[in-house]
């Protein structure tokens, strides 16, 4: 299987730790996934609300670039950011479903010397870890089992909805399995896929804050001592606004929120800096086995 890595804009900004830890963990597991050369913004959510076709064209450009790297096997393009994962998948589906859209995008790509035939597979790292690499291999790489770490696996919206086929939309399991494989305990909780508020935290703060707060509160109530996320925006909302939540809701919310890849890195004994632990607002040191 041939992989390429599509980090997306957020992993080069607020989600830098996701980028760092993912690359480090890939490295540790002997995975070859170089960054897609020349990639651009996926067109994500905000763009969709200005001009949908342009957003699709942006996404399609990345797929076309990836396809150029096709060898005998089609490329599996790993997109860790939930929004990128969704948009890249969506453009695949919609190009197949809506002829008019397909035509516009194909012609536009052609004008800049590109072509896309629909062969690239867009994958989320959770999918790759659990279904390609396999839990056994991951277990074998664990040098520091995360004893006592109680993880609320938070998948968010767009990793499982509406396109992911690798996990259940209502009660996804892959991240939980992964956490258990690392020696941690995955906490069963009902809000695994409930929206964190997305960009609302920035635009309609009251709404966004409350949505994130609800998640943190329920996770704590179910006994979690850390939350694992799979999306830079979720992580940002859930972690960086905790101070504000304490002020707004008068509640002593204080739950470390890390990228699931950081937690993997920790279990693999990778150095804190390599997996970007220093970038977190809420220190993970407090959580068992994470120091």
């Amino acid at each position: 299987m041939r992989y390429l890595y599509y980090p997306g804009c957020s992993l080069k900004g607020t989600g830098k730790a996701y980028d760092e830890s993912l690359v480090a963990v890939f490295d540790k597991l002997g995975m070859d996934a170089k960054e897609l050369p020349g990639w651009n913004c996926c067109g994500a959510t905000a763009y969709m609300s200005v001009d949908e076709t342009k957003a699709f064209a942006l996404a399609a450009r990345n797929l076309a670039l990836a396809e150029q790297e096709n060898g005998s096997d089609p490329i599996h393009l790993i997109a860790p950011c939930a929004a990128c994962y969704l948009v890249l998948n969506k453009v695949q589906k919609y190009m197949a479903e809506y002829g008019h859209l397909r035509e516009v995008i194909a012609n536009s790509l052609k004008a800049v010397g590109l072509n896309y035939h629909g062969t690239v597979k867009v994958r989320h790292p959770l999918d790759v870890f659990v279904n390609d690499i396999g839990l056994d291999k991951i277990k074998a790489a664990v040098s520091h089992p995360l004893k006592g770490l109680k993880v609320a696996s938070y998948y968010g919206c767009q990793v499982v909805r509406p396109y992911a086929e690798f996990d259940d939309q209502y009660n996804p399991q892959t991240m939980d399995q992964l956490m258990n494989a690392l020696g941690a305990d995955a906490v069963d909780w009902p809000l695994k896929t409930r929206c964190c508020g997305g960009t609302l935290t920035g635009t309609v703060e009251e709404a966004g804050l409350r949505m994130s707060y609800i998640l943190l509160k329920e996770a704590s109530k179910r006994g979690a001592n850390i939350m694992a996320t799979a999306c830079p925006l979720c992580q940002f909302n859930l972690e960086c606004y905790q101070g504000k939540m304490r002020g707004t809701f008068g509640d002593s919310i204080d739950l470390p929120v890390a990228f699931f890849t950081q937690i993997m890195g920790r279990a693999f004994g990778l150095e804190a800096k390599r997996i970007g632990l220093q970038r977190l607002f809420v220190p993970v040191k407090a959580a068992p086995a994470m120091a």
Partner: protein
Amino acid sequence: MSSLQIQVRIKHQEELDPDFANSIAALPGGENLSRCIQCGTCSSTCPVSLYMDYTPRRIIAMTRAGFKQEVLASNTIWLCASCYECTVDCPREIKVTDIMYALKRRAMEEKVYPKRFPTPVLAKEFFKSVLKTGRSNEGLTVTWMILKTAPLNMLKQMGLGLKLLLRGRMALGVEKMEGDPTQIRRLMEQVEVEEKKTH
């Protein structure tokens, strides 16, 4: 003297836009608009509906019936966080999220969104940034947005920005794609050309 507030609530057919529903249904994802059975699953599954002036179900009904003004001026379409819950839960396979996007775009086209409301501004800022650099630069875009919509908030957000800076999570410089960013501009221009062609 009565202090009872009253308002005329009747709707005359002439006030509705007969083409509104079709124009939305014609977009990718809008095709099942007419099939809604008003069950309310979308509203109840929606994590933001508690703030909406019209629940997603009502937006669907109003769109279908041609209540264009009310729909485009509603806060609902801007509160939608694109979480796709409604889309996967709708028993009639109506892509409600796509319809929300379509309505947002329409509101922006017709310039009827709430004044100083940040989402459209944010969206446009992202758009510009991508056009220039091939990437969206969260830090810069968000700063711009705050300045444009609520300059006073800048101070409030400063703390957060500073913390991000210190942890290397927000670049002061501009992230640029590898290669030739003008390809992005050309691609976008071509999309416009192609869209005109097919219309």
